[in-house]
């Protein structure tokens, strides 16, 4: 008849700690769908699956080049071991997923980088998948949207990585010449060779609230120029203030902003 007395304990995952504000948040209060801290509004990183969930219309995504696999051309020690381990851990084959989708019923080609996979670094496969996605968008007369999240070029692939910068940029130029739209969405973190190539080439460049965006790291710059950098340097907001990007976007509004932008630019170059 009476209740069973239990030893009180806190179940795993009841509280989520925000690494930005250090606050502890009750699981149900945490905006898991968008991965945004309700306390400090930090937009925590999203993996590909969740990014697709909040961006594309349900059931509309058709993936391109899912089987494209990395090879170790330079025989870089333990490179393939690392790749295999990450494949197992993340369920991804590489740091970018590309495909065709609908966003609020508007067709688009989309490429989403995932920082869990070698910090979203750009090797041959990442570069190739993005290039092919752009080319498909051009051929099909569709806009291309790229969500960037990357530490830069992949050091394990040396010069092959750096070549991807030129390759992707060239594809975007052809897309542009064909009068087609490219929206770049910079998410945390967007740095190095990715910033120096396709990330900054968008006709419209959006960035998520608080995202880190830069080329070299803050410390490297400070040590090189021997000067202290201003507060907020390399954040989305700082870049907006200095004219590098077009808009800082709250992730909750991103889907609607993307679909509106696509609608406005329908028909391509006039």
């Amino acid at each position, binding site marked *: 008849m009476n209740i069973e*007395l239990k*030893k009180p*304990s*806190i*179940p795993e995952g009841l509280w989520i700690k925000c690494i930005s504000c250090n606050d*502890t948040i009750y699981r*149900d209060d945490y905006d898991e769908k968008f991965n945004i801290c309700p306390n400090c509004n930090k937009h925590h990183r999203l993996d590909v699956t969740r990014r697709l969930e909040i961006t594309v219309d349900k059931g509309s995504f058709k993936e391109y080049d899912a089987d494209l696999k990395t090879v170790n051309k330079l025989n870089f020690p333990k490179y393939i071991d690392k790749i295999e381990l990450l494949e197992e851990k993340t369920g991804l084959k590489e740091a970018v997923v590309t495909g065709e989708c609908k966003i609020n019923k508007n067709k688009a080609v989309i490429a989403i980088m995932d920082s869990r996979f070698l910090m979203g670094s750009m090797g041959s496969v990442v570069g190739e998948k993005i290039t092919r996605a752009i080319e498909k968008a051009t051929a099909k007369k569709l806009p291309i949207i790229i969500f960037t999240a990357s530490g830069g070029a992949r050091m394990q692939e040396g010069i092959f990585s750096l070549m991807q910068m030129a390759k992707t940029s060239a594809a975007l130029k052809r897309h542009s010449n064909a009068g087609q739209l490219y929206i770049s969405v910079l998410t945390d973190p967007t740095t190095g060779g990715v910033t120096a190539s396709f990330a900054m080439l968008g006709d419209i460049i959006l960035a998520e609230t608080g995202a880190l965006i830069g080329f070299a790291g803050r410390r490297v710059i400070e040590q090189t120029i021997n000067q202290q950098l201003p507060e907020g340097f390399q954040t989305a907001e700082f870049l907006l203030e200095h004219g590098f990007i077009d808009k800082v976007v709250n992730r909750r509004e991103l889907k609607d902003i993307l679909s509106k932008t696509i609608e406005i630019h329908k028909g391509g170059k006039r």
Partner: protein
Amino acid sequence: MFKKILIANRGEIAVRIIRACKEMGIQTVAVYSEIDKESLHVQLADQSVCIGQASPQKSYLNIENIISATVLTGAEAIHPGFGFLSENSKFASICNECGIEFIGPTAEMIDKMGNKSEARKTMIEAGIPVVPGSKGKVEGIEDGLKIAEEIGYPVMIKASAGGGGRGMRIAYDKEKFISAFNTAKSESKKAFGDDTMYVEKYVENPKHIEFQILADKHGNVIHLGERDCSIQRRHQKVLEEAPSKVISGELRDAMGKAAVKAAKSIKYQNAGTIEFLLDKHGDFYFIEMNTRIQVEHPITELITGIDLIKEQIKIAFGEKLLIKQKDVKITGHAIECRINAENPELNFMPSPGTITDLRLPGGYGVRIDSQVYSGYTIPPNYDSMIAKLIVHDKTREEAINKMKRALDEFKIKGLCTNIEFQKVILNKEAFIEGKYDTAFIANHIG
């Protein structure tokens, strides 16, 4: 029975709960904010844990720290008292997830009654009389106006999430309705983060009568009679008495039955209070349910001889109610005066400070529930209530005389209190004759 209970509250109610636990042989854990280190509840409990800074948000409303303190001390249950987290469904559900018994209703029941327009809808469905008005929330100003025309002016515009008079406006005509609706809506948005509104007929000068109910986990529900809480200042209760002078045995039965039916309709558990408005024609209407122990619970205890806190603990543990409705006998008359650290001369401005000298009243039939002692400093961070003076006697007249005598004995030096103000109420003819309603203070004292 529980071996250890954590009291997630402060002040006199924490002391009250610790006392009940001690009498039941249950160990107690007090939680306190940094500023409450010297508090009486901390001194009386077997264990105490500091849960944060003085601001309520950082301590008594800090769910994470309270749960951690419970796990740390191995308490099996939490008594939330009133205010703070007592009607927070999230807290109740977190307790449940952590294997801690929340001494009160379940999260679902709190949610059902916490949203006032939702509660109103539930009661209409259960056949409990409610003040004529919208069935649930009002969709917009047009919808509201339509309802107002139907039920006739004056009408009361209320916020679903409201309380303490905020988000509440009276409208006497169509023109007033529009402006009142908009101000109430924006006030509610600001105060509660929710601007769902509903509209009711404004019952002019009603009595505020509430019924205490007890419900166990086995479907047994009883009521313990009413409390007359019509003496209010700006919607805050000042003095309460039980039983009410204007309620006949017959009306008590009818209202009590409605209260029990209301509780049963949501399968309510633990102690709760069903609030009614009683108009001059003897018609009563459900207004809301408080899903927790009330400040004024001692007057019910004194006239029924039932310790409500102990019953709450037993119910939470799963015991069946041993008292049947027919066993509930109302004996004598009880009055409670809320003693606040405030200055009636300065529009009742809170008056925190250090008590330099204290003389408490006593004698037969006098009870004091308080956290104060000589030398205690009342912090400015919390509610200004510092004591509840409760008396019990055979008749209402004797109880009034006893209360006057007890108030005369009550001396607190070092800060201002409303003791003299309470005496003014007790000496007013309208009060003595029992002819008072919620407008009493505004009309008779100002």
